Structure formats: structure tokens, C-alpha cells
């Protein structure tokens, strides 16, 4: 079995659904200069198989963004070789910017002042967000 050494200082993003690790890597760590390891298709009792990302010397990560990709993700902070904290990714209840409204007639597509703001209305399976301007539902897709 492939083995990767643990880290002494940094974060371990665990319980990433198989295949989603590369998305997180590309979004958050593709241009980082710190050492990063992406493990794919690791055996997991909970998920069958999972992806893991280990990042050295970084202690913070966008939990909302991780939650949008996979709400089952956990983030372990390691300090001096010991587990310092364990946090679960969160699904943001509101998103401002960073997502486009699904409705082509929405003012947010044609006016720079209108920054799209979304409120989570359903997180069961699909993440459905309502636009604060036109009230149309946009399903979050990465």
C-alpha cells in the first residue's frame, strides 16, 4: 500500500469524496509554494474510498468553499505533530459574489453595481440558492 508520511505542522483535508480532491487542489493550492500532497482513492471505512490533501505550514482554509464541494469534508489542524483541532466543512447559508445567477434576465448579469447575493434554501442532495435580486433558484455546481 502506498504510504505518505504525516505532517508536523499544517492541515489535513480529509473525507473528500473520491475524484473531488483534484478540484480542491486546483482551486486552492495549484499555485501555492508550500509543500502539498494530494492522495486519491484512499481506502475509507466511512466512504469506501476518499481523497485526502495535506498542506504544510498552512492553518486556515475556506470551509465554505470546501462545503460547497463536499459537505462531508473534515479539516484537521496539526501543530507540532499533534492534532490541534478538527472542523467540519460548512455549507454557506449565504454567498455573495463568486457564483452567477442562473436567470439570464437577472439584473446581476448587466449591471456592475448588482453583486449577486444568494441564500441557501435547500441543501438536501442539491444545493439550491435563491438570488436576492430576481429570486430565481440556482443550483450550485463547481
Amino acid at each position, binding site marked *: 500500500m502506498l504510504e505518505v508520511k504525516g505532517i508536523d505542522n499544517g492541515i489535513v483535508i480529509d473525507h473528500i469524496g473520491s475524484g473531488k480532491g483534484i478540484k480542491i487542489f486546483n482551486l486552492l493550492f495549484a499555485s501555492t509554494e508550500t509543500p502539498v500532497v494530494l492522495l486519491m482513492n484512499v481506502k475509507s471505512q466511512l466512504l469506501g474510498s476518499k481523497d485526502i490533501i495535506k498542506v504544510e505550514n498552512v492553518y486556515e482554509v475556506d470551509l465554505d468553499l470546501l462545503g460547497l464541494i463536499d459537505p462531508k469534508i473534515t479539516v484537521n489542524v496539526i501543530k507540532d505533530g499533534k492534532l490541534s483541532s478538527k472542523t467540519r466543512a460548512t455549507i454557506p447559508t449565504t454567498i455573495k459574489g463568486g457564483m452567477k445567477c442562473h436567470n439570464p434576465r437577472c439584473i446581476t448579469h448587466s449591471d456592475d*453595481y*448588482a453583486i449577486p447575493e444568494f441564500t441557501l434554501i435547500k441543501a438536501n442532495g442539491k444545493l439550491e440558492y435563491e438570488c436576492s435580486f430576481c429570486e430565481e433558484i440556482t443550483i450550485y455546481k463547481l
Partner: protein
Amino acid sequence: MRHLIEPEDLTLEEIEHLVATGMDIFNNPSNYSEVCKGKILASLFFEPSTRTKFSFDSAMMRLGGNVIGFADAETSSTKKGESLADTIRVMGYYSDIIVMRHPKEGAPKLASQYSSIPVINGGDGGHQHPTQTLTDLITIKRFKGEIGKHSVAFCGDLKYGRTVHSLIRTLARFGTKEFILVSPEELKLPESLKRQLVEKYGVELTEVLYLEEVIDKIDILYMTRIQKERFFNEADYLKLKDSFMLNRDKLKEAKPDMIIMHPLPRVNEIAYDVDDDSRAVYFEQSEMGVYIRMALITKLLEVGPYARG
């Protein structure tokens, strides 16, 4: 300062009070002929409108106020590339209240965020048209006495019709428990709205394809225009269009005190021979639009019956 962007911006008590004020203005117009003296309404129509624009203009003039504005974005600085926020900011210096229509959905909400004076949504794309809903409610009040106590049928384009969505939600808030929906398969009420009506308000929805099946059960019949381009092909349109047309013959089985409403413009969904029927109130509905808009302007400007202190 208050804006009216969607009907939910007003509580049921506020809507009832506005309707009562509108009825009082209708009955005693001279009492209100100077309550907006010295006030200016900015009428900003970024897309054309007949009834909404002129009823607002008329409402402000009947209250003794003045109106400035444009009826087409081509004649405003928008054509030069000015942002909506900048137009709205400036209008705050030139006027006391704004009514706007805009083709983009959510534009009035954006305007309200940059406005120093009240903004009224006069229609934003297929999204909201709250003063049409208020117009419908005052019409129901005038002809049926009460709001929320009747069997209401909507006929025609229930998928894209913003007036239908807005009115049906507001009537459900008022306690209407029974709606009859008459539309072709392609133009049914959206599932999300149906779900909301059933789950949130516990209403009963009956969906049928032919008006004749239900006409004898209806207290208020709300007709809407079906546009040919909504159909996949012309053959379907031709086959179905008669099912959603109202004529004298179909009215034979209707209740004698049923009322027929329509937000106008109509094309051919109500035959001209229905106009003389005492149950047809769609022209009076347009008339009531002026009185409810007068009431709304006084409320948002806090003058007349809504003056503070």
C-alpha cells in the same frame, strides 16, 4: 423610508388599509386632490407600458402633484451607458418618489439600494408587478366585498404570467383556500409555486384543461393572454387556443355574480361580446388601478391619510 418592490413588502394589514384608502379616494376624489401639491413623481420606464405608466401619471396628477420622466430607455442617459444606480441617485434630487419599469429582473431592488427617495416597482421583466396585484385586490374588494373568501380561477398562461404568480400568492396570504387552474400543459403554474402554495398556505389546487368543466364553480375568473410564441408549434396553438378563450356561450353556466378580470391588454382571449356582460369588470379593474396607486403614493410619501403626527 419605504419602497414597494414586491407584494411581500407590505403586511396584510397595510394592504387592507391601502385598499380601504383607495376605495375612499374612489368615492371622494375631491378630498385628495391637493395632498401631493408640490411633490414630483419620477416616472422611469426603461421599457414601454401603457396602463402602468399612465395610471401612475394620472394618479399623481389627481393628487395635485407633478410628473417627470421618460417612457423609453432610448430617451434617457441609459443609452449613453449610464448605470441604473447613477440615474436613481440623481433622480433623488429632482423628485420625491420614483416609479420604474425595467426589463431586467431585480432592477427595482437594485435601484432601491441606491435611492434616497421611495421606489415603486412598476414591473421588472417576468418577476414582480406589485401594483398590478394591488389593482386586482381593490377590484375584488369593489365587486366582491371581501378579499380571500372566494373560489378563484386563473385561465391562460399560468407559467410565465407574473401577474398570476403575484396575485395567487397574495390571495393565499389572505386566506383563499381554493384555486382552479385552467391552462394548457405547456403553460401550467410552475411546480415550485404550486409546492409553496400547498405546503405554506395549505391551499387546494384543481387543474383542468377546459374552462367549461369548472365555470359553474367560479366566483372570480382571472383571464390572461396566451402568446402564440409560447407554444412549440402553431398546430398546438391553433388546437388549444379556443379552450382558453372566453365568450358569451361559455358564460351560460357561470354564476350570475361571478366577476371576470384581466390585467389587459387582451388580444383574443376574451371575445368582444363578453364586454357588455355585467360580470365583465376588466375595464373597471384598470380604472381602480389609478385609485390604488393614488393610495400607494400617499402612503410612501407619508401625506394625506398617512401623514405623520
